[in-house]
């Protein structure tokens, strides 16, 4: 006997909520509408059994005995789990950090505090005339972004769709898959993004354009009432993390129409963590990596992250010297070296919770199947209680 449920996918920060899951005998048999990555998540949810009580006790011991612990990761877990993690950091008086500052500098803080104008992806689908992918390869990181929101779909005020009603441009170092499907591709040399911003605003204010492509792009900007920059880590690098330049550019564009920015964050709930920290009145200082490098951390509680794969070796090798507790559904290089691994489930697949899409819209993830694997929230709650 098979049943079908509609699920929300935690594969990326798009949080697609139209996933049709077919379940037979408590197993997921078929996944409809999810991209290659989302389908892989739903079809491969399987975890070995282990002694959870012993693991939790050991985690509490490690954290109690540590002189300078830290909590790291958190972009791929639920809001509920993030809240508990923040409470643990308050209890221990220790550092808590995600990747938002590492990958995007100050951008997330600026967006969340409305210093840079932002909008929702639904606004984009219904109103955006021009989509600018700057240093972001959406087709490779958030595959359904262009088909659900930013280029191909019809929208309330975009009834004629992408062929007549929308313009999309990719600005990047190389011709990525996103560049291939956008109307235009503008190749930018490494570090030349500020100069390009100068040139664009210059052309808009009447200076002669340096190329046909730039003239065309400027005309599209002038025509547009509603435009969005989808900012990836490539843009942050290209600007050498100078957010003042980006703020200046956004203000400049806004003289020609309504221009917004949405950060194309890596991690299905990075936006959630940044907002949680903002509400708890904490700043993400970007100091975990420096502390790790300087030997200032002796125990790390890593939640839903794989720093052995994400960080340069000069940093990741420091994890081998300290006590590490890893709470994660997968087997990764980080679980390989960890002192303690607690395998948890995946929100939206075999457990639940809420998460924020890249544009701040909150979604509820409900489990499709039942498993014994605990949620990150449940594990962290038990650790907090034991401290």
């Amino acid at each position: 006997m098979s049943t079908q449920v509609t699920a929300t996918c935690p594969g990326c920060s798009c949080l697609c909520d139209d996933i049709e899951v077919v379940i037979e005998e408590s197993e997921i048999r078929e996944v409809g509408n999810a991209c290659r990555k989302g389908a892989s998540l739903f079809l491969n949810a399987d975890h070995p059994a282990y002694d959870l009580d012993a693991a939790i006790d050991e985690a509490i011991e490690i954290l109690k005995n540590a002189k300078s612990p830290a909590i790291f990761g958190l972009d791929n877990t639920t809001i509920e789990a993030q809240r508990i993690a923040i409470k643990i950091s308050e209890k221990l008086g220790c550092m808590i950090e995600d990747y938002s500052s590492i990958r995007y500098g100050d951008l997330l803080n600026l967006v969340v505090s409305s210093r840079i104008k932002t909008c929702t992806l639904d606004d984009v689908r219904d109103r955006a005339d021009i989509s600018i992918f700057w240093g972001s390869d959406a087709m490779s990181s958030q595959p359904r972004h262009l088909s659900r929101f930013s280029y191909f779909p019809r929208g309330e005020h975009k009834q004629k769709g992408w062929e007549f009603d929308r313009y999309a441009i990719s600005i990047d170092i190389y011709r990525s898959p996103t560049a291939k499907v956008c109307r235009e591709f503008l190749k930018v040399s490494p570090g030349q993004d500020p100069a390009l911003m100068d040139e664009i605003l210059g052309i808009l204010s009447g200076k002669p354009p340096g190329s046909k492509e730039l003239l065309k792009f400027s005309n599209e900007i002038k025509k547009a009432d509603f435009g969005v920059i989808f900012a990836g880590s490539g843009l942050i690098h290209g600007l050498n993390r100078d957010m003042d330049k980006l703020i200046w550019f956004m203000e400049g564009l806004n003289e020609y129409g309504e221009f917004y920015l949405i950060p194309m964050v890596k991690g299905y709930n990075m936006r959630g963590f940044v907002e949680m920290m903002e509400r708890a009145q904490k700043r993400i200082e970007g100091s975990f990596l420096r502390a790790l490098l300087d030997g200032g951390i002796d125990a790390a509680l890593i939640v839903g992250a794989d720093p052995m794969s994400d960080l340069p070796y000069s940093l990741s090798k420091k994890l081998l010297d300290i006590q590490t507790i890893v709470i994660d559904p997968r087997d990764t290089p980080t679980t390989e070296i960890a002192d303690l691994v607690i395998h948890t489930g995946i929100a939206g697949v075999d457990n639940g919770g809420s998460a924020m899409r890249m544009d701040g819209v909150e979604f509820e993830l409900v489990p499709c199947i039942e498993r014994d694997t605990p949620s990150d929230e449940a594990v962290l709650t038990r650790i907090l209680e034991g401290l």
Partner: protein
Amino acid sequence: MAGISRLIQAPEYEIKILIISDIFQSAESCRGRISREYQDLSAVVYLDKEDMKAWSIKDGMNVTLFNENGKIVVTGRSSKEEHRGIGLMPPSIYSMRLASFDETSGAIPLMIEARIRRGDGEVTGIRELCKKI
């Protein structure tokens, strides 16, 4: 004698490694990041076709990438795009072996300076990269 053995080694060339997203590797990573399948999609560098001709590297040949941070052996594959002097790698423990941490900015780099040469044996295993040197 030492001088002659250096000459026998394959020639080295400068290369910039650009770290790019790869949906196929991402999809595989949902199944775990220790498997052979994940290794096959991560221990790889996509090279410009003209560069491959100039460097005598054939599609599917093992190549060594190295710099002051470390050395890895990965599979060289021909890229469908043109990007002379640049090799594309997905984010993984492999590409991160070559990366430096910028202490001033606190950032992980997206572009890494390295050198490339043919050969040097088998592709580096993931578990080997998890060990302390």
